[in-house]
């Protein structure tokens, strides 16, 4: 038997592998989105037909290409993530198509594109990123090995945003390089998870097994809490410097959840929560913008035409929607040609969907987020080693917690913060970063990835056969 020609290891042997489950689910996504587009088109135009067949076609085409690419690559990656993300992205596309197109105008090569066109571009980009990573990433050593480098890069990015960032609405979140602008905090959340996964997997045994007694509490060795304190400081820094409550809340939430997942010690979470409450109280006392947010949260009706306006309008949108919603295209009454909620496409898509799809629709959307999270956690628990486990768990939690924070802000469960609704809000940075998350989860779900470092030296098995197990 002749040895097969040796291929570069990174690609390995390519043998197409059918992904029937994914194909079936994607088929269902296509049917559902077509139905949504039909509903939108019929409502808006008054004639029976799809609303934007071209946009829907491009989107579904991109999904099919992503599916086929994975089939050809032949990896045994997860088959549920892509359809779930695709469904959310499709709902986003329908929503952006029905909002006024001049909310966002981008010019490329002389012609200008409206909201839905730009969003479609980013959605296709995000699916591309996810698929590419899901196919190409076989080794995690580039993430695992350089975790401190990543952390440094993240902090650097943060500082860069502070120094060079453009201020919009009193928040310094956007970084501009010539024609390209982006929000680094979206990328930062991925970097944070990589760093935490690296740190926690390396020190997990210590954090779990050793104790320092402080009064009645049994705590892990104190020096290992340093990153926790550092994290806390970074979160506060983000609030102070960037005025970005949402990102701070997200980072801290993911951090606490991940540290609990890694160690199973509730005492750490408790400390974290106490630190968080202390920090929030101090912030609320020291900084006007934090206090305003909290006041508006407690009673938006105190200033219905000023600070509370957005939140109140969002609540009205939920109220108009009711149980079944008013239908795609039939809600969001425009006053003076504008949608009723300012920043509806970035901060309030959840409220918009609440009006048009109703509570029934919202619960379905929340369910899809939970599916993505469950899938990520499952990948994490099944992963071959601690780093991958924690990485997958962290990435899944980033999506879940971020969705929770902004949905809760829309519903007046939490103070409103400016994070995006993953896969649904308008915005390139957000979509690409979440595409990155999806891609990494896909790659991690492949059980055939390059194996983790063997438990011992390779010669560990030598002599096993001769000694005999029996």
């Amino acid at each position, binding site marked *: 038997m002749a040895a097969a020609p040796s291929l570069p290891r990174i690609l390995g042997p390519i043998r197409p592998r059918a992904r029937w489950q994914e194909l079936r689910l994607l088929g269902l996504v296509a049917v559902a989105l077509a139905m949504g587009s039909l509903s939108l088109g019929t*409502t808006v135009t008054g004639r029976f037909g799809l609303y934007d067949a071209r946009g829907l076609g491009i989107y579904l085409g991109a999904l099919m290409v992503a599916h086929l690419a994975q089939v050809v690559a032949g990896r045994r990656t997860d088959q549920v993530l892509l359809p779930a993300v695709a469904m959310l992205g499709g709902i986003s596309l329908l929503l952006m198509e029905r909002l006024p197109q001049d909310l966002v105008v981008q010019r490329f090569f002389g012609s200008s594109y409206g909201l839905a066109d730009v969003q479609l571009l980013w959605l296709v980009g995000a699916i591309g990123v996810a698929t590419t990573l899901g196919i190409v990433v076989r080794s995690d050593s580039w993430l695992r090995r350089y975790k401190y480098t990543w952390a440094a890069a993240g902090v650097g990015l943060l500082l860069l945003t502070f120094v060079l960032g453009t201020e919009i609405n009193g928040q310094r979140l956007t970084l501009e390089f010539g024609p390209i602008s982006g929000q680094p905090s979206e990328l930062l959340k991925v970097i944070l998870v990589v760093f935490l996964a690296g740190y926690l997997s390396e020190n997990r*045994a210590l954090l779990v097994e050793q104790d320092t007694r402080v009064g009645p509490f049994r705590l892990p060795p104190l020096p290992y809490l340093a990153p926790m304190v550092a994290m806390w400081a970074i979160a506060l820094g983000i609030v102070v410097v960037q005025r970005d409550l949402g990102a701070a809340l997200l980072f801290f939430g993911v951090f606490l959840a991940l540290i609990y997942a890694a160690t*199973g010690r509730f005492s750490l979470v408790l400390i974290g929560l106490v630190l968080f409450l202390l920090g929030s109280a101090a912030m609320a006392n020291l900084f006007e913008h934090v206090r305003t947010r909290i006041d508006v949260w407690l009673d938006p009706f105190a200033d219905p035409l000023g600070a509370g306006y957005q939140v109140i309008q969002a609540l009205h949108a939920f109220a108009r929607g009711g149980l079944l919603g008013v239908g795609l295209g039939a809600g969001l009454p425009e*006053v003076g040609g504008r949608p009723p909620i300012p920043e509806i496409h970035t901060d309030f898509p959840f409220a918009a969907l609440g009006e048009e799809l109703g509570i029934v629709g919202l619960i379905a959307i929340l369910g899809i987020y*939970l599916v993505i999270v469950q899938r990520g956690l499952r990948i994490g*628990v099944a992963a071959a*080693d601690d780093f991958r486990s924690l990485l997958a768990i962290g990435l899944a939690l980033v999506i879940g917690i971020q969705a929770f924070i902004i*949905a809760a802000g829309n519903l007046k469960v939490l103070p409103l913060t400016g994070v995006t609704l993953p896969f649904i809000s308008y915005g390139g940075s957000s979509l690409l970063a979440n595409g990155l998350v999806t891609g990494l989860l896909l790659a991690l779900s492949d059980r055939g990835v390059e194996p983790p470092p063997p438990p011992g030296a390779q010669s560990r098995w030598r002599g096993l056969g001769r000694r005999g197990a029996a």
Partner: protein
Amino acid sequence: MLGSDGSRRPLAGPTVHVAVVLSVAFALLAGAAGYWGVIRSADLAQSPDDAAVIAAARTVPRGRILDRAGTVLARNKADANGELYRVYAGPAISQVVGYASRQYGKAGLERAYDAELSGLAGDTLTDAFAKFGTNPYDPKDLTLSISYDLQKAAVSALGAHRGAIVMLDPRSGEVLALASTPTYDASKISNPATSQAAFAALQDDPAQPLLPRATLGRYVPGSVFKIVTAIAGLGSGAITPATTYKQQPGAERNGLLVSGYRVRDGHHPQTGSKPLDLVGATEVSCNIWYAQTGLRTGGADLVGYAERMGFGAALPFDLPTAASQVTGGTGAQPGGFVDDVELANASYGQAETFVTPLQMALVAATVANDGELMRPRLVTSMTSQRSGSRTIGPQSMGRVIPVSDAEAIKAAMVQAVEGPLGHLFTTGAKVVGITTAGKSGTAELGGSGEPHSWFIGFAPAENPTIAIAVLVEQAGRGGEVAAPIAGRLMTRYLKGAQ
């Protein structure tokens, strides 16, 4: 899993915990969505501040408002630019219908029924389908129980006085007249050409013409409150119609000593030394008998029976109403009274007791309708081209007292109008040829001001079809001002109806 790889196993447990916490958090979101989308839905989505309501107001002709005879009370008219504005039947109805102005918002029924008038709300199912029709709006015409004739008569009966009159059918709760004076011309506010000047003048007027006194004015009731005390006394079983107090005749001269304070009377030297019962005490409006009845009933039952008739909270009504109160509620005694002195004074309406004219009309209606209170209402049906007509039927607010108790109070109130002594206190309240029941009130305000003049009543006593409450601010004794107004209006209604 492998035993040798034990370090991985512990991850699964905490991860499941994290998943559970996140799921619970998501369930919380679904719950919050349910709260805003279902429980608070009507409240928010039909409020005049809602974007959909505002959007509709600019484009859709509002529904008309009609009285019970079909007289148009509010309709649309186009200005020079073709934009619509509202025209109203006349100043008499302004306190009920209110106004809808592009500059100054909305008031009255125009505000309360904004969503229906602008075509956004109504029958849930029809509305749900309407959203996808070619015209999503379905403005509804409102038909009121108001009789515009009677309303005009009530407003002119008050004349230059400040005051309020409520007339309703005790059997169905349909409000026939809801007059407040001074009134204003709502058409001037809704007309863009005159709105600015008209609104500024009204806001500066010290007589507060924009205040709907019948529903939002709170007044000391005086003796008309005795009917509430009688209802509570009989209802709770503290007294019977035959109850007398033997110290009462003596106390007429020197006053009744309650905890060191003297409740004084003295309006009726004619009753002599005979102790009065319910009918006798009501006929001469005996403060001492009612003070003792109140003390025997107790604060808890007095307040409790008042609350059965709507005291203590805004009334369930088509317009916003102020809450009437028996007491300030700050005291430690049952019902919130400070002490027995307050309770004794409240029993004849002279303590921390404040009532709206609408509330007092409901007290009269309760007695008239044999002890069962019907929800007061203005809008009796809504009609639109698309969803047809929907009738809003009568609705009971529950039985307050048994029929026998109501009959006893009715007899007392008849005696207060028709009795040889009673008619001296309620001169002019009698509808000629028809048995009339009623009770006058003179609400002392303290200080040097004239008292508020009150009358509540109903007719025909055998089978009441009309209940009335009349309040005239600072006009003197109830028998002299309010009672004749009530008599004239009931006569007009009953004779006109025959």
